[in-house]
């Protein structure tokens, strides 16, 4: 994939990231931060790639460390976000009512 295509996609991702979040209610700031935090745990894909290409023991060891760290970020992030949001379960107001409030 060429540089310009990646740049194009990057620019669009910036816009999407900005726009999607710009209306969030302050109640959700913490779960949103935590959820976004989980998403960047996807660096795990990169860590796996590097570990899968490692040929030398040191490199493999460091790459596996990266895998452990990235997994902790990814798994822990989604779990902790789910726990936060679980607390709100069953407490949803009538649909719509909550969307308006902020």
């Amino acid at each position, binding site marked *: 994939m060429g540089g310009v295509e990646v740049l194009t996609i990057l620019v669009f991702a910036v816009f999407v990231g900005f726009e999607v979040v710009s209306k969030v209610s302050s109640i959700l700031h913490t779960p949103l931060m935590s959820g976004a935090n989980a998403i960047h745990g996807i660096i795990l*894909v990169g860590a796996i790639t590097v570990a899968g290409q490692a040929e030398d023991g040191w490199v493999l060891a460091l790459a596996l460390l990266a895998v452990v760290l990235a997994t902790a970020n990814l798994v822990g992030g989604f779990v902790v976000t789910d726990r936060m949001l679980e607390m709100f379960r069953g407490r949803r107001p009538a649909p719509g009512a909550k969307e308006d409030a902020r």
Partner: protein
Amino acid sequence: MTASAPLLDPTWTALLYLAAAVCFILALKGLSSPKHARRGNLVGALGAAIALVTVFLSSRLANIPWILAAIAVGAAIAAPVARRVKMTQMPQLVALFNGVGGGAAALVALLELPHAGAPEDGWVRLAIVFTLLVGAVSFAGSAVTFAKLQELMTTRPVTFLGLPVLMGAVLLAALAAAGAVVATGSVPLAVVLLALGLLAGVLLVLPVGGADVPIVISLLNAFTGLAVAASGLVLGNVLLVVAGTLVGASGTILTRLMAAAMGRSVVHIMFGAFRGGSTAGSTAVSDRPVRSSSPEDVAVLLGYAQKVIIVPGYGLAVAQGQHTAAELAGALEARGIDVEFAIHPVAGRMPGHMNVLLAEANVPYESLKEMSEVNSEFRQADVALVVGANDVVNPAAKSTPGSPIYGMPILEVAEAKQVVFLKRSMRPGFAGIENELLYDPKTALLFGDAKDSLTQVLGAVKAL
């Protein structure tokens, strides 16, 4: 070390990564809407699962058993911690997870450096250097925020005379090292850069007061996103670019929104301490006369009211008094009194703190009122019971231009017929400013730890 042949051709790989990216967008979208937040998070996890399956099926990977073992270890460490952590310790856990993500990105970049050999790979090396530096800052910065929040170190801003100079020197050295790594591709130099990044991360977060830390976590979260995006450029993996950029962009906005909800700017939070403008809470204690009260008096006031509005704040969270507060509300309601909780968006030390806290204590959702709904109701309230809150009810926000909280919307408890404060002393809150309301004739103070006071008041109410 056997290499398995990839099962997926590049087109399918790209399509699956695209699906994962869409999942991440939908996750952020869901998380921004109260109705779909939990589902949004699950969609994000689904995206991650798709991406993981894809990477195993699409690349020629060696060491697969090792990798699987490492994943198992990571998950086995993180999941139970995430399951068991107390609600009040959420912020430091998020900081921790954010930090390890940054660290992973930095490691990935370091290990890719030797493969970015060709001279036309200047761009790749630039991306490597960026990932290394930003990932390291995020890792070390998050570690310090963790230490602050976990109270492993002082939560007050740490500044010393040469700090700005030292910070400048470290940044200059890091820039020089970064340039050298781009030019030479030297791995030892990259390790030096990594070390400088770690140092910069520590220095960046030290001067931030403990109460501002959630905003710093959000900022470092955006940093990690950017590092991951750059690592995607290094590895030629579009999903990493997209996911990292999404987090970087949304994290930046979120950081600004969080700061704005407290009426502050991000720059002020990060560097305010240097200018002596820290709002970490002064501990000056005033000696002007106040009307202090006993649990029994407060119980009478509450027990014979028609409408009570409880205003929870940071002190309630610290004292872990949410269950007692919920019980007190229940006891009052059993007496036919109308009880509501007024939730200020920045009450406590993380956004949504009070909602989470009271939801945990099973306060029914209908009793939780947001600031905009409840402000008009104080007029009809007989008693406003302020439990461990201070800044969020401070009229200086409306009346005193120049005050650090001037302009912040507040809960207008002064409109209620009587105001009762539950706090331990006359010390001010987070913003470090006096609250005139404490000296108001219609205000009574019940000194003591919020949970203890609530328990005593609850007992007295039951005895009425």
